[in-house]
């Protein structure tokens, strides 16, 4: 049990303010181990963001079990200190890069988290330099955030979390407002953190190509888990994804379309390269 970071069982959640509100999450059960790289897929309003907000105490579940990094979030006597302790371990990067940077200078912003934790000054300095180096933003330490590109701002936000030394990072549609170059920067940064530092990464997205890179994909539809497995398993069942209001990745769609036309193709490619390889081999087989 030690390596289970997130344990959820029959989780229900609705927004309290609205009377007679329809529950957003209806019985989510999932276990996520330490060091996993998980993509959570779902269309707008599926409940994927609500699920993310439960994981670091922004929202509180109505019923069910939820334990994150040893903190029981469904417990009725949850204190502010418990949530504080949880947030040291579980960091979150949001969608809009502008609305999460606090300071007027990049390195001051990265220092914000550790400053809140009461880390000694010299140690903060060391962590800030290290975090900026990890995300490749050392050059911009003295810059003003508003002069950076969207991808760079998100990398600063990630550095701000690294400096707090969390065990898990949640990316709540953090690439949605970025251009393709910025999106690649951010994805490469968190993949590096996952591989090199063993940080558990949860990325919430509606981009198929992004989900395809993860080790595990969880599809949420209408507040329930629709599918849970490797990208290969998930994208093999194209009909189910379409039913959930999602698109299959373009390459998967292409292979499926070719098969329908009677082209014999074996395997389930997920990435662009795999897809290209498969088609090349099929063409060679035809000609040879």
């Amino acid at each position, binding site marked *: 049990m030690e390596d289970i970071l997130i344990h959820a069982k029959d989780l229900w959640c609705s927004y309290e303010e609205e009377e007679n509100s329809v529950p957003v999450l209806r019985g989510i059960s999932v276990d996520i181990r330490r060091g996993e790289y998980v993509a959570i897929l779902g269309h707008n309003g599926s409940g994927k963001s609500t699920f993310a907000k439960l994981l670091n105490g922004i929202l509180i579940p109505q019923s069910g079990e939820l334990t994150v990094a040893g903190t029981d979030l469904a417990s009725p006597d949850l204190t502010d200190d418990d949530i504080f302790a949880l947030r040291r371990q579980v960091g979150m990067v949001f969608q809009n890069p502008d609305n999460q940077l606090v300071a007027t200078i990049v390195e001051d912003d990265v220092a914000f988290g550790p*400053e809140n934790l009461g880390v000694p000054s010299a140690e903060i300095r060391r962590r800030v330099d290290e975090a900026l180096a990890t995300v490749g933003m050392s050059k911009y330490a003295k810059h003003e955030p508003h002069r950076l590109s969207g991808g760079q701002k998100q990398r600063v936000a990630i550095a701000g979390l690294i400096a707090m030394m969390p065990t898990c990072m949640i990316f709540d549609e953090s690439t949605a407002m970025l251009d393709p170059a910025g999106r690649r920067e951010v994805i490469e940064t968190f993949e590096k953190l996952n591989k090199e530092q063993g940080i558990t990464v949860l990325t919430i997205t509606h981009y198929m190509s992004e989900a395809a890179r993860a080790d595990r994909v969880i599809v949420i539809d209408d507040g329930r888990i629709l599918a849970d497995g490797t990208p290969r398993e998930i994208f093999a069942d194209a009909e189910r994804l379409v039913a959930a209001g999602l698109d299959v990745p373009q390459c998967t769609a292409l292979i499926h379309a070719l098969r329908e036309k009677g082209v014999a193709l074996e395997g389930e490619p997920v990435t662009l390269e795999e897809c290209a390889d498969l088609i090349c081999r099929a063409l060679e087989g035809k000609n040879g």
Partner: protein
Amino acid sequence: MKNIALGQFYPARSPIHALDARMKVILSILYIVCTFLCKNVLAFGALALSAVLLILLSRVPMRTILRAIRPILFIMLFTALINLFFTKGETLLWSQQILPFWRIDLHLEGIYSAAFMLVRIVVLILGTSIFLTYTTTPIALTDAIESLLSPLRVIHVPVHEFAMMMTIALRFIPTLSEETEKIMNAQKARGVDFSQGGLIRRAKALIPILIPLFVSAFRRADELATAMECRCYRGGKGRTKMTVSHLHFGDFTALLLVVAFGTGLILLNRYGFGFTMV
């Protein structure tokens, strides 16, 4: 819009730039006191000289300095005229009956008085701009004020919260000004004309800019608050700082110099000639 300048900070390497921001706040207060210590020609002369010295020391170009004076030109002119004609003295230089019930007198003391007031106002503005706005970044100034006011925490003044609000305001000025531009362009695309019509019509044209801007600002504030909480922010309690600034030898030297200057002014007041202000 991306190059919007925060405050009027002029980046340069100078002895005044190098001073600790907290010390600069104290020095500018002391300097203001100095301008009020002067009573005669010698003292005001020394004060004017000190201002010139400060400008040279700060390495801020004269053109930038003059920009600080421009907004107060009217006040200067007004004060000078009032002092010139309404100061009563012993030496009457010129007198003119304008209306049967209104006569203008010009005394020698009036000329002195007007000149003194002009020097005082100009030096007051220059001194504070050089110590604070031109050589200190707004963020350093905010930190300095937080640090200097921190004793007030004992009587429950939310000093840290105030400083945090200032910092966030500074952080969001460029973001919101960019947003304003975007909204204006969006409204222009829908045919709103901001440059035509009288004052009232132009003011009315601002409403479709202000409403979306406010809505967006509130949304941003809400998201920022959540993001800050997620980064373990819970007020000033138990918080440390990455950069802890220390006062150096230079800071104390500057303090000593300003105090010595003030004492010098008091002494000069005794050896004056001509008009002495009360």
